[in-house]
């Protein structure tokens, strides 16, 4: 599939929620191990900033800064759990707002933390099978509006953001192979249970409950079993990386840079050490963003490029894992 990642940009909500703000609200956590998660600030979407707005801003930034002729965008993939309407697809609305050509195809993809790599595969397939020249991938999350005000752990970890990636036709395939996986039996480990088809909102949806650490949630709010997700990541990610390298007939030493989904610096550092990856070849990017769900990997790609850590010609392993539970990995040459 002859595709490559040509460019990335990202957009953030206007309002910051810093660690100073957090510890002013939860002074009992100052000096606690929560700071090992590695986040210092995160941007939080307000009521008038929805996911597609952020995605649109990221798209405009990318198209304008890279002088992309909008008539040459042949497909939009909008990846978010936040859709503007039940119908039509939000990608259709974005196509209109960007004033792209009528030949431009559109599709919404609902998936979470693992979805960037899934979307790269889909984009590559669209280029290969549908003859697209350029695919504009937009990832966006405003998950924080579902986090309970007293869910201290997740309020510390998560931020909102959107990213735009231009995937373009290339002479040779620059992305791949791919590894995907799902553990659907564990779907409840990361969930917002009520408010959709299976469990509509009821009065009991907002009945609060607390975990053993004093984090409060309810069925209408975001709920993540942190221990289960740590174990899942520990159990799943290293074999996925080995599987991917085996498929690519490469070793870890052939990879110039590892960019993982960024849920928690402590978790990622544990994975890095477990897999014997040198710190200078493993990119962290949580400090100023938090866990931005679908956008962590493209934001990290952009930040790594700006920091001079990702240069043209490098071979980068991208790995996503999380809600589903699901996981995905690929190797991209830049």
């Amino acid at each position, binding site marked *: 599939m002859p595709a490559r990642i040509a460019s990335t940009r990202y957009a953030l909500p206007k309002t910051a929620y810093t660690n100073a703000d957090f510890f002013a609200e939860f002074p009992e956590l100052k000096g606690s191990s929560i700071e*090992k998660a590695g986040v210092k600030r995160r941007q939080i979407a307000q009521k008038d900033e929805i996911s597609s707005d952020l995605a649109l801003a990221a798209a405009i930034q990318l198209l304008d800064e890279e002088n992309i002729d909008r008539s040459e965008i042949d497909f939009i993939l909008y990846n978010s759990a936040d859709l503007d309407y039940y119908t039509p697809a939000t990608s259709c609305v974005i196509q209109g707002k960007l004033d792209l050509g009528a030949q431009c195809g559109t599709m919404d993809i609902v998936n979470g933390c693992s979805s960037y790599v899934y979307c790269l595969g889909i984009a590559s397939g669209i280029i290969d099978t549908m003859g697209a020249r350029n695919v504009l991938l937009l990832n966006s999350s405003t998950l924080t509006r579902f986090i309970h005000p007293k869910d201290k752990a997740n309020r510390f970890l998560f931020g909102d953001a959107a990213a735009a990636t231009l995937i373009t036709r290339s002479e040779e395939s620059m992305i791949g192979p791919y590894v995907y996986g799902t553990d659907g039996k564990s779907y409840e480990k990361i969930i917002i249970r009520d408010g959709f088809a299976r469990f509509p909102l009821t009065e009991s949806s907002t009945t609060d409950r607390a975990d053993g650490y004093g984090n409060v949630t309810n069925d209408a709010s975001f709920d993540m079993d942190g*221990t289960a997700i*740590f*174990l899942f990541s*520990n*159990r799943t990610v290293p074999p996925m990386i080995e599987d991917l390298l085996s498929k690519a007939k490469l070793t870890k030493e052939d990879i110039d840079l590892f960019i993982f989904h960024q849920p928690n610096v402590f978790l990622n550092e544990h994975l890095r050490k477990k897999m014997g990856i040198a710190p200078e070849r493993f990119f962290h990017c949580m400090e100023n963003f938090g866990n931005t769900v679908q956008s962590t990997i493209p934001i990290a790609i952009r930040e790594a490029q700006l920091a001079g850590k990702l240069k043209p010609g490098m071979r980068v392993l991208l790995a996503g894992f999380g809600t589903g539970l699901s996981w995905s990995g690929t190797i991209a040459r830049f």
Partner: protein
Amino acid sequence: MDTIEIFGAKLEQELDGIPPGSIQPTTNYREIPDWSSMHALILIALAETEYNVALTGEDLRKCNTVQDIYDVIKSRKS
């Protein structure tokens, strides 16, 4: 099931930065340098991957020493 000495050595390796031999059966695990709830996750992961035993936060709250944790894992493994 590993001996407690081997269990302690594996725990030292997983926690990273702990001098070899510093974790003993009588060590109060909460007094291991830099111990935090994050390290509890690593210990729980070790129990699962090395011994196929599910350890919970509640289990750890009831334990004090490395021996206590080892005994829980050993009893569940058998």
